[in-house]
């Protein structure tokens, strides 16, 4: 079964974010980029699906600039079969991103399209359900694991305080969260093989953004806190402060 996994190049989670001179972007000097952590979970489930079925191809797709080639190569090294880079801007307007992706995905016959549940940069958590809505396909979000049988996908999703099992007909779009399957590491053999795998590049359908970043600011600093004391003897004073000063309990 063919599966398409949409991935995004994002700054590593350990990155300290600094606002650049323009005031509306981040200073990218020294920033290390990674494949979106949730996108890696999506890729892992795609590879497991292909392996379970014993046939099919896993394609990784991204919208971005030339630097995103590195992200796609990483995904190829993990085991994806081929990659497609749609060159264009992927900004805050998730609907613009969704339209650019849907223009490509609508023409594909892959029954499953997977996304990470969210990108850890813009964190809008919206592109997967938007793509599905634009294409008129079923969409299940926050899927931890799934199984495919008889033209349907059965998904286990995380909900408040529990688990929900949802069935959707194929073709379907799923957004994947962390589940029981840890993403595999790229092996040296995988990294070598990735260099020879096909990576196609073409311009994305241009969609104007209607949600623009006017300015970016660093989070307001917190007033300096204090160490109330050491060990359990400090507890009564902590409780008093929480009640009388912070009015938090």
């Amino acid at each position, binding site marked *: 079964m063919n599966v398409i996994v949409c991935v995004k190049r994002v700054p590593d*989670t350990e*990155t*300290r*974010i600094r606002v650049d001179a323009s005031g509306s972007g981040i200073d990218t000097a020294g920033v290390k980029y990674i494949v979106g*952590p*949730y996108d890696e979970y999506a890729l892992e489930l795609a590879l497991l699906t292909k392996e379970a079925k014993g046939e099919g191809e896993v394609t990784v797709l991204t919208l971005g600039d030339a630097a995103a080639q590195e992200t796609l190569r990483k995904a190829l090294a993990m085991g994806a079969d081929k990659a497609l880079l749609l060159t264009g801007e992927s900004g*805050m307007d998730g*609907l613009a991103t969704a339209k650019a992706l849907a223009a490509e995905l609508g023409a594909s016959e892959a029954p499953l399209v997977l996304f990470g549940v969210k990108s*850890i*940069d813009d*964190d*809008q*958590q*919206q592109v997967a*359900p*938007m793509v*599905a*809505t634009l294409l008129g396909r*079923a*969409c299940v979000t*926050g899927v*931890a694991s799934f199984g495919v049988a008889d033209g349907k996908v*059965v998904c286990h999703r*995380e*909900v*408040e*305080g*529990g*688990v*929900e*099992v*949802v*069935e*959707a007909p194929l073709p379907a779009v799923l957004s994947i969260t*962390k*589940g029981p399957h840890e993403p595999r590491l790229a092996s040296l053999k995988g990294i070598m093989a990735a260099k020879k795998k096909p990576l196609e590049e073409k311009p994305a359908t241009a969609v104007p*953004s*209607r*949600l*623009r*970043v*006017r300015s*970016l*600011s660093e*989070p307001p600093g*917190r007033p300096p*806190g*204090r*160490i*109330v*004391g*050491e*060990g*359990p003897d400090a*507890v009564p004073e*902590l409780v008093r402060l*929480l009640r009388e000063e*912070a009015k*938090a*309990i």
Partner: protein
Amino acid sequence: MADVLVFAEQRDGKLSGTTREVVSVAARLAVSLGGSAHVLVLGAPGSVNGAADLGRYGAAAVAVAEHDALGEYNPEGYAGVVADHVRKSEYAAVLFAATSLGKDLAPRVAATLDVPLATDVTGIEADGGSITIVRPVYAGKAFATLEVDATPVVASLRPNVFPPTERAAEGAVSTFTPEIDPSSWKLRVIERRQESGEALDVSEATVIVSGGRGMKDPSNWKLLEGLRDALGSGVALGASRAVVDAGWRPHGEQVGQTGKTVAPKLYVAVGISGAVQHLAGMRTAKTIVAINRDADAPIFNVADYGIVGDLFEVLPRLTEEIAALKADG
């Protein structure tokens, strides 16, 4: 075109606590825009309680869409009814709560209406007829001020950020039966399993008791559960990435850039050192308490109150003191 619509979420007929927050924001925006705040609730016939009460927070009108198939959330069913309702009027803005339901629903509604969506918004102002939005990016390591070039402006608001504000309005409740065809819905929920007692998501909790690697063993979570129970209702357990990665706690509890970003009134970090990606996820909490052995742990840089010490001594004492306080009223 100055009215603001709120999608209000109900569970078992009860309106969610975040509804009052979102209605309060809608009423404030509507005043600035010269319109009024409207609310839409979906549910089974006769099942929705407390709709009229939203008038206290500034809702001029509450429409209840009733249908047997709308008692429980269905993504396609709900998105269709909400989008149809929005199209019937000319709203300046449509607001959701950024709960897990809101995060699933709002993108579908926005895509159906062909307008952009701002998620997990922490600031929203109307000025001279235009609406400006502030939302965290990089899990709170920065905040973006956004301009929206579309009408209506669609946004989901982060729970616990906007205080509910009383502002009397009529709160006139009307019900209607939407035209829907459940047989066309593609998704089918086969099973819902409740694993913990209270269906409270960590991103909606007003108090979070969070544990990290310093807890040493998953069985020690009974200490955190004890503190949670002593603190009363609206309290959820949280976890650091390290303990989720170790399989001690479910990912749904994870706070941080690869988990949930939270803004509770009180965040108690126990045995959490405070990695950059964890701090990003909880630094907008109103009050932060840290309990850690290591006086140099980065968590103390964001904590309002810290106790340096052995959590296995401090935690039972804290639970005891808080339980005594609550018992005294």
